[in-house]
């Protein structure tokens, strides 16, 4: 720095003054702001904001939040709900991928749904079964690919499995499936056909680590 001593002193004084003014200003503004807030009412953001954000199409299904990466459920979602038994009739495209597979937030939500929808009451909090079947083994009466599981949850099954498709949107069903997958409760779509035939062997169960096969307890 090449400033003279006098300018330096002056600058110091000016800085000190500015600082003091700033401090006082802060205090004054803060006090004024806190004191001046008493007259407002509660739902400023309520009515005004809410009424402005009315959707244009109330009647139609709101897909806004459900279109993120979801496959076209087409066939799945339009299957008649009820007791559709029998693997033999399963013409499902087993390669449909669960859009939420591995999504930790979705899996957490799937877990909450699994408990909240009382799935745990039948299948166990550990998915090991109870009133309903074990969901962590390789035996799936109606197929164990993610799409198969989706279908079972969506449509219900004859021996008491409710048809959740009547109650919750497809995205939530996929999240439940994601949770089951995260617990090793599914086999890859590529093995769907063999799985439906009950032909999954040890080599398969060990080849995709998510499953708890006999060699992979």
């Amino acid at each position, binding site marked *: 720095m090449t400033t003279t001593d006098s300018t330096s002193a002056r600058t110091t004084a000016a800085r000190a003054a500015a600082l003091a003014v700033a401090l006082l200003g802060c205090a004054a503004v803060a006090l004024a702001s806190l004191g001046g807030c008493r007259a407002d009412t509660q739902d400023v953001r309520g009515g005004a904001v809410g009424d402005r954000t009315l959707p244009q199409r109330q009647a139609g299904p709101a897909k806004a939040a459900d279109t993120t990466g979801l496959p076209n459920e087409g066939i799945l979602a339009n299957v008649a709900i009820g007791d559709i038994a029998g693997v033999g009739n399963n013409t499902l495209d087993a390669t449909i991928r669960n859009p939420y597979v591995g999504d930790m937030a979705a899996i957490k939500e799937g877990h909450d749904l699994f408990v909240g*929808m*009382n799935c745990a*009451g039948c299948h166990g*909090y550990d998915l090991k079964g109870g*009133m309903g079947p074990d969901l962590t083994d390789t035996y799936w009466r109606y197929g164990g690919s993610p799409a198969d599981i989706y279908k079972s949850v969506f449509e219900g099954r*004859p*021996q*008491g499995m*409710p048809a959740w498709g009547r109650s919750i949107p497809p995205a939530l069903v996929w999240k439940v499936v994601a949770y089951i997958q995260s617990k090793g409760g599914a086999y890859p779509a590529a093995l769907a056909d063999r799985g439906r035939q009950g032909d999954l062997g040890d080599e398969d169960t060990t080849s995709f680590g998510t499953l708890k096969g006999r060699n992979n307890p």
Partner: protein
Amino acid sequence: MTERDDRSSRSRRPRRTARGAVAIAIAAVLGMTTAACGTKDDAGRVPSLGATPATAATPSSAFAAPAVAARGAAWLPPGAGDGDWLMPSRDYAGTRYSPLTEITTGNAAQLQLAWTFDDGESHYGHEMTPLVANNTMYIVSPFPNRAFALDLTKPGAPVKWKYEPNPSPIAIGKACCDAVNRGAALYDGKLIYNLLDDHTVAVDAATGKELWRTKLANVEDGTTMTMAPLVADGKVYVGNSGGEMGVAGWLAALDANSGKELWRAYSVGSDSLVRIGAEFKPFYAWMRGKDLGATTWPAGAWKHGAGAPWGWVTYDPELKQIFYGTSNTGPWNADQRPGLNLWTSGVFARNAADGMARWAFVFTPHNEWDYDGVNENILVDLPVNGQTRKVMVQFNRNGFAYTIDRTTGEVLVAKPFGHENWASGIDPKTAMPIVNADKHTVPPGRWVRDICPADIGVKDFEPSAFSPRTGLFYVTVQNICMDYKGRETGYIAGTPYWGAQMTRHVGPGGNYGEFVAFDAATGKKVWGIPEPFLTYSGALVTAGDVAFYGTVDGWFRAVDARSGKVLWSRKLGSGIIGAPMSYRGPDGHQYVAIAAGVGGGAMTTASQPGFPARGSTYYVFTLGQNVPATTPSTAGEQSGAPKKEGGKP
């Protein structure tokens, strides 16, 4: 009333003899020939009723004549002879006492398999008691609830007819604890029983033709029916199951002829729903008040509060009063239902005609542990504190044996009959349990360790037996504890409204089961036979002073009803959770029948090493020399008895 000749604990029964009536009934129903019995000991004789002739064959001469069995024909379904078994507990009092005396403590070791039958439904547990009348055995399978009539007059007891009701398979997934059935009742030529999908059916006992079918509830909502109906005075009493599915419990009375519903009494809700009126006089003050079935709950919670009467109904023909217990409170997570939660986990005494409640008692108010109150209420007269009282005895799931005055609902004796640690006792003033602070499961969301008993109780539904000859109750006791974690649960129709996570383990000593003889007048255990596996079968006791029970690992045993000495054991194909019964066959001999097909609540211990596979076979035993000859050489070797027609009269 009665002479109390002897104050020793063994001979304190009032006695009212009606042997004549029973004998007439037998003669009418069976038309027995007695000639075939000549080579056997006296106990096998047809007219041997109650205990009288048994004195020679048993060391029981010190014991006086029976009380309950000799109460009179009114305590038996109409037309029941002493060799018949027309309802699961044989008599309305629920004693499971057979007056047959051919099998005694002296010869029980010679029991042999006579024949077997398989109903083919090994997927589910076999909790029923076979019935016998008119030389026919009646069996109801678990889901799909097929009924079979087996012709006992022919070798091997072939199927006479089969009835297939085809209930909805949805019911399988709505039954909490296996798609079981606990049996049927024979009444007025009809076989009456419940289907899992909430229908009661009556089938012509002679032909197997369906006479009527009444729908009582919607299975889609989670209601199922597993209990055996009680039929008395032309009314069929049936109750629902579904304490884990958010049902509201009810007991309905149907007309036995038409199946038409006469009335329905709920276990929860307003007084009109519960059928509480001016007649209702509970003994304890905390059960008095208006609409307690609704006001002891949070808003509307009673609608899903369970109290399902899925156990046994007993009937006092003198008081014209029925008794039945109500199930656990729903959901299990008690945090969601602050309040006393009446009238779940309790017992009702109702006017048998119109169903109006006379008194009620709640064993486990604000039930936090799934201690149902549905166990059998056995109606006997016992000397309590020196005075003969008309009592009902219930071995409750919560581990206490309650001896209750059945006219007033006053608890006379309440003592533990097995290992429990959740309550330190029963308050003598209020009869409420004194809960140990560390066994509360509220607040939920944390593990509460080592609560004994576990949810299935020190005793579950499996019915005990009472011998008027010994004055003792024969009870299969469970020694099982649990770690319990309450969980939030929401009611969604048709899904479990349960709210608990559990792991179960064996109680102190390492034996899951025990067969106990219990004195309900004093609340004392007389003897016990420890079993490494769960004892989850019903009990049977005969006038030959032989008691029968089974274990979950498949042992079927005969024991001396007085000493508890095991006389005979036979390993069956699967675990035993049904109840044994005894009948007199067309050949005049005494038989004992039992179903072996493990399942139901016994599956809570399925991880125990050595646990058997499921099964569906009925086994029928009789004394070796009576086993019908199938291959002449074997029959000849077995006994020197003269070659009889062997079941081919």
